[in-house]
């Protein structure tokens, strides 16, 4: 409903009525507008009304203008979405001023662009966290061309003499394996004229040979002297043996011819043994059984060491708080079973005899004294 409070319609060119009747205003506007512009030809399609009608195509300028507008619009949408996403991939221009060296031929100031990998914005968000998808490289990346070399070698055939390798130097001449220059190698035929051996080698070998000969000679002479000394000692001993045997023979042995042979006394075995053992100081053993069987070899007597341990252990105290079974130095007691401990004996003797002042040996008896005078019968 049109009223005075609302603004007038934009496209209405009808007259403004002061009356409030609505029936009169509405049909007038509709009729005027429609009636003025509507024609019968307007309802017929243009191609059917005019069959030779040519449709004009847009020009290149119009197309580029439209493309630029569309592109800017889409870019704006993409930028808005990228800003909201978690992956903030954006290119930044960093301006740096360097004092570059002159040989690099650079300007004083240059721009460094830092570009990070871009994610596909159409993918869901959670995919980006798990697996990053690599986007195609940007337009700045240049395609590396594949270069092919030409088939033929420009250089001619090399001189075969330059590639010739002379014979190897033997280990006898080069024992330490030093690197030898090519011109110094023996195998090369060209340098045979200049091949000379150092005199130092000959001198060294001669010196070594002389030293070895001298050492062997010294050892041989030393052994000879030792052998001579030993021979002299043996000869001296043998001559002494001979002299002593002669002396012993004439002193103890043969009675002189013409001497009266005394009849020998018939002494008993005991008397003879006494004479041999005590008068002459000889060691005489007991009577031996002759013709006995030979003793077969048997291993050493085996005994149980626990007997000694038990004997040594008898002195150990037995009580509840005892931790160990044996004393600490139990082996010492075992080893000293058959040996006399003189220190302990001396201590015991000194303790008993209080009068003795640190003297070792038998106990000395003192004279008996009595203070009681009543025992003296003579008094």
């Amino acid at each position, binding site marked *: 409903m049109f009223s005075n409070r609302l603004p007038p319609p934009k496209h209405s060119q009808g007259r403004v009525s002061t009356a409030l009747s609505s029936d009169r205003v509405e049909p007038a506007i509709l009729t005027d507008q429609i009636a003025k512009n509507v024609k019968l030809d307007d309802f017929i399609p243009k191609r059917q009304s005019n069959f030779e009608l040519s449709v004009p195509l847009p020009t290149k300028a119009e197309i580029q203008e439209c493309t630029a507008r569309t592109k800017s619009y889409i870019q704006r949408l993409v930028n808005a979405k990228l800003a909201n996403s978690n992956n903030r991939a954006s290119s930044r221009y960093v301006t740096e001023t360097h004092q570059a060296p002159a040989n690099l031929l650079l300007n004083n100031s240059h721009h460094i662009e830092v570009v990070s990998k871009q994610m596909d914005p159409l993918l869901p968000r959670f995919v980006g966290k798990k697996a990053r998808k690599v986007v195609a490289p940007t337009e700045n990346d240049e395609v590396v061309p594949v270069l092919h070399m030409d088939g033929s070698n420009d250089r001619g055939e090399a001189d075969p003499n330059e590639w010739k390798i002379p014979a190897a130097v033997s280990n006898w001449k080069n024992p330490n394996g030093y690197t030898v220059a090519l011109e110094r190698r023996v195998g090369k035929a060209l340098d045979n004229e200049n091949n000379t051996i150092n005199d130092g080698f000959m001198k060294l070998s001669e010196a070594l040979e002389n030293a070895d000969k001298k050492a062997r000679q010294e050892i041989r002479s030393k052994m000879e002297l030792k052998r001579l000394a030993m021979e002299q000692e043996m000869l001296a001993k043998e001559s002494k043996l001979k002299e002593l*045997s002669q002396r*012993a023979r004439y002193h103890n042995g*043969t009675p002189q011819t013409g001497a009266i042979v005394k009849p020998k006394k018939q002494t008993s075995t005991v008397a003879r043994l006494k004479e041999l053992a005590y008068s002459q100081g000889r*060691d005489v053993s007991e009577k031996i*059984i002759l013709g006995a069987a030979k003793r077969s070899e048997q291993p050493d007597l085996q005994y149980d060491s626990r007997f000694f341990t038990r004997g040594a252990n008898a002195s150990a105290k037995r009580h509840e708080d005892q931790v160990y079974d044996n004393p600490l130095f139990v082996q010492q007691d075992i080893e000293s079973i058959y040996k006399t401990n003189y220190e302990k004996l001396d201590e015991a003797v000194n303790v008993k005899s209080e009068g003795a002042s640190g003297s070792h040996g038998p106990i000395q008896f003192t004279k008996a004294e009595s203070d009681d005078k009543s025992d003296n019968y003579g008094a």
Partner: protein
Amino acid sequence: MFHRRKRPYNTRNYGHDDKKFKSQYIDIMPDFSPSGLLELESNNKEGIALKHVEPQDAISPDNYMDMLGLEARDRTMYELVIYRKNDKDKGPWKRYDLNGRSCYLVGRELGHSLDTDLDDRTEIVVADIGIPEETSSKQHCVIQFRNVRGILKCYVMDLDSSNGTCLNNVVIPGARYIELRSGDVLTLSEFEEDNDYELIFMNV
């Protein structure tokens, strides 16, 4: 008591001579004395049983001095020199070096056997030191080295020989070890007229 069992007399034997059957009653008694086979098996030389068995402390002079670690000049040499009484040149008849072994057996070595039953009269010599005397026994005496409480000592022992052994003109009792010293004279018989060889023990 061994009860002799009498045979019953039969009619068949009646009237025969009794002497014919007397040999049947000879009794055979067991012999308990030792046979000597054990001794022969354990200690023999060429089938002859040796009388002497080395004691447990027997040691040779070389081994003893090796044990002490002595050098050649410090070692003692032991030697047995044998002289003949009627020798004109007065030199020793033989000399034996006693350093190599711990025991030396002295006995007879004539070159022929005294047993007339043997056809070839081959003598079996058992002794290490042979004396060519008929009065010597095959195993007369023995010279033994022993390690007595860490000291090397030399002993002589008469092996119960027939004619005995004299040490410095004194007859030594049989089967006893008697110590030998340097310069001792041994003869292999009690009687002076039977002695033709003197054995002198020397050590330097």
